[in-house]
């Protein structure tokens, strides 16, 4: 049985993701999640933690209302920024305009394991539910993870 996972994010960063989805509506927004994960060593314990997010350009100009794509050079740059800040690239976010915040088959077919995939549903221009998912290692399905939203001051403890 796969152990359930948690991704921790501040209310401020969660709001930035939601706002990005609102700004790009009716198109999908996308971006990188930077942070730390106990799997990556350093003796740190606790859940995976999002410490920053980088809004990126959706390359799917042909169908931006229901598809997103991040250019490999943007992936490389996001990783460079993460490393420069002493963080890791731990996942990605995107929005689902007028669709639930649930990964599609298309999402699954293009996903990488280990990353956290945060999805925010934006209905009629209003951000609604935000969820996070990790692809199972056999690629058969996603496991939903708990999104733990904390205040900015809690992040310093």
């Amino acid at each position, binding site marked *: 049985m796969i152990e359930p996972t948690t991704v921790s994010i501040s209310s401020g960063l969660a709001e930035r993701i939601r706002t990005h989805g609102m700004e790009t509506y009716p198109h*999908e927004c996308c971006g990188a999640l930077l942070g730390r994960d106990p799997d990556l060593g350093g003796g740190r314990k606790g859940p995976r933690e999002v410490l920053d997010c980088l809004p990126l350009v959706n390359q*799917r100009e042909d*169908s931006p209302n229901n598809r997103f794509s991040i250019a490999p050079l943007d992936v490389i740059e996001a*990783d460079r920024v993460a490393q420069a800040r002493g963080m*890791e*690239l731990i996942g990605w976010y995107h929005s689902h305009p007028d669709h639930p915040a649930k990964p599609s*088959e298309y999402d699954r077919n293009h996903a*990488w394991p280990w990353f956290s995939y945060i999805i925010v549903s934006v209905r009629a221009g209003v951000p609604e539910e935000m969820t996070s998912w990790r692809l199972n290692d*056999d*690629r058969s399905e996603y496991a939903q993870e708990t999104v733990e939203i904390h205040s900015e001051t809690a992040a310093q403890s």
Partner: protein
Amino acid sequence: MSVKVMIPTPLRPHTGGKAAAEFQAKTVAEALAHLTAQYADLKRHLFTEEGSLRSFVNVYVNGEDIRYLAQENTPTKDGDTIKIIPSIAGGSAARATTEHSPGRALRS
């Protein structure tokens, strides 16, 4: 010296946390074959069941995308660095307005 293959973060749980592996290899295909022989769990994330590189797997040799070189037949030599870079893509359930695969356009 040998060819260094850089492993992206999401695949490091399958390499015992290692960020790089080195092999003697004359081509990208040979290097990736050594990689998946040593770390068998990587195969399903890098290749389709038919043995093609997945469309969201980008491979660079010394900073150049192999799509613009000789694809997996791109020659490699000692001291070269191969980087595996994820393409990140997805979307909601509805069919795309104009569906196309975001990668592997040069593959026959």
